[in-house]
């Protein structure tokens, strides 16, 4: 979980994890009250279905000792919150509200309970589109810029699989749309560069060239031009896609890259590789025949 470490947090990990997990919504806090409500107001069979598993959850998932114990054997820092998925919050709370609805003896009372339950849920929740609903503008459900950038690169390139490096948003989306554009850095390399995460020495050596390119593209550092060019050559990167407002555009031109086109928000530059080995798909025909 972001910024949370079991070894550091110790017994408070579970509580901090629950706080992060819930965000601005109070639904997880409704789980045990809902179970207690069902115990008293629902048919007796519900007790075994809801209360007993809730008791086991209280002793396990909600037990502050559990993450500390598991952490001794496995690194579950990033995944521990998924144990909270086993808590059937949505099912239990909605079932208890339905039982409450059934307690209303007249249709008028039921309507009142229904509407007040909806208001209650809305008041205690955090809307998924709280930052605004962004409508998809095409059937790919992707920024139209991705389609335009892909088209411009393929129109300019004389190889089937050109390699590029892009600004973060474009880098994360372009290969979802176009598998024929290769990228110079992986998602992890990109994220590590942005967050300044240090990696093992051997890995750092292996990632030397992608990291240099990312220093320029992601961190907007102006490296010596020769170093940047060397890394473009070593990774076979021909295209650099950046925001049209990037302060690096003059630097790219100084490094010998040429603008080949632009979209409303981005500029695409091409670097002419001195030595180029076009990417080809591995041919398994001989292997299949031998099989």
């Amino acid at each position, binding site marked *: 979980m972001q910024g949370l470490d079991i070894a550091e947090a110790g017994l408070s990990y579970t509580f901090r994890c629950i706080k992060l*997990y*819930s*965000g601005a*919504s109070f*639904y997880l806090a409704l789980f045990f009250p809902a179970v207690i409500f069902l115990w008293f107001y629902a048919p007796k*069979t519900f007790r*075994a*279905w809801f209360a*007993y*598993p809730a*008791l*086991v*959850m209280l002793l*396990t*998932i909600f037990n502050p000792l559990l993450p500390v114990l598991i952490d001794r054997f496995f690194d579950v820092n990033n995944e521990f*919150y*998924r144990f909270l*998925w*086993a808590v059937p*919050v*949505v*099912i239990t*709370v*909605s*079932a208890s*509200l*339905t039982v409450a*609805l*059934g307690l209303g003896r007249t249709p008028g009372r039921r309507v009142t309970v229904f509407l007040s339950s*909806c208001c209650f*849920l*809305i008041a*205690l*929740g955090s*809307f*998924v589109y709280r930052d605004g609903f*962004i*409508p*998809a503008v095409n*059937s*790919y*459900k*992707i920024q139209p810029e991705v389609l335009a950038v892909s088209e411009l690169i393929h129109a300019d390139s004389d190889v089937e699989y050109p390699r590029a490096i892009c600004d973060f948003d474009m880098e*994360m*989306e372009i*290969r*979802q*749309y176009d598998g*024929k554009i*290769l*990228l110079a*850095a*992986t*998602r992890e390399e990109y994220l590590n560069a942005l967050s300044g995460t240090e990696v093992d020495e051997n890995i750092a050596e292996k990632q030397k060239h992608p990291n240099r390119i990312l220093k320029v593209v992601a961190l907007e550092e102006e490296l010596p031009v020769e170093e940047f060019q060397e890394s473009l050559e070593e990774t076979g990167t021909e295209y650099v896609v950046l925001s049209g407002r990037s302060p690096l555009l003059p630097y790219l031109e100084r490094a010998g890259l040429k603008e080949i086109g632009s979209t409303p928000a981005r500029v695409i530059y091409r670097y002419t590789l001195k030595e180029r080995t076009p*990417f080809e*798909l*591995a041919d*398994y025909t001989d292997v*299949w025949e*031998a099989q």
Partner: protein
Amino acid sequence: MRNVALSILAVPVNLLICFSFGALFLRLLRQKLSFCLAAVLGFFVMLIAFDFCCLPVMLKWRPLSLLTVIWAVLSAAAVLATVFIYGNTWKSFFSELSEELRAHPLPYIVMAVLVLLQIVIVALSYEFTLDAAYFVANVTTSLTTNTLNIYDPYTGDWLDHFEFRYFFSTYPLHCAVMCSLFALNALSYMKIAMSAFTLLLSNMMYYLIGRKLFGEEQWKCAAMLVFAGLMNFFFSSIYTPSEFLLTRGYEGKALLGNVVLPMIMYLGILFYENTGLLARSAMLFAVCAGSTVLSNSANMLLPAAIAVFFLPVIIKNKSWKTFLGCAVSVLPNLALVAAYVAYVHGKFVLYTYPR
């Protein structure tokens, strides 16, 4: 327009295939055919069947197109087999179904409108998530290269060995196969069709649990679905299953949180009846084994969830058969955890070329 139309068409086709696998499985277990149970259970049986088809093809470095042919034949065979095996039962099945709908039209209309509304909202929204850079790009890469997990989805580079973390989680490859069958791009299929399908399965789970809780009171099932739907839209942080359901329903993890875990709870409820334990254990096994195909996280989460929901059943019913059923069911998950640990410690590597 073509992409949208094909994505919409993919939802009922997926449902039909799942229903067929589920119906065959229920027949094998000598259980009564129920539409929702067959569809949800069939989803897991289908994933297991797909894994059995996919793994040998992948291990022999054969192309996606071959897997597509195999899967098309098997799916068609499952649908045809269901039609023939159930034979005369279809008439009574559909008449019971229509009777049920005619007896309680309003709750069913409310439920249908509710699910449709959720699907439309999700289908029309744009979401940017980092995980799509793996899941969707993996499908796109498989389609572009006509291979199975041989190229890195992030960069497109050739991999010299299979990434074991995703080796048994062949769900993205199932999506690639379906894209091939529909001649559809990965983005539209995953972000429209699979997001809608996950919502559909998730609501079917709420319905199944609602029916178990409230019996023939359909209006209560409808009310529960309304509350659950509302809660999903308001239970939002980057970690909750509701957020996964609405913003990245095409990921295996979204199915894990919103279909697999409710299914475990549902089966837990069924086990309290202490009857038909063998059939129900087989269902539990199918869910556990099927979940391994969805996400690696299932291997850690399912044993924990089964302990939570089944420990009280085992104690209350004093049933060693239930214990045995649970223990056998989590074996696939535990075996894959062990295999993954062995892989991480360098005990073996699965190469993408002959050595």
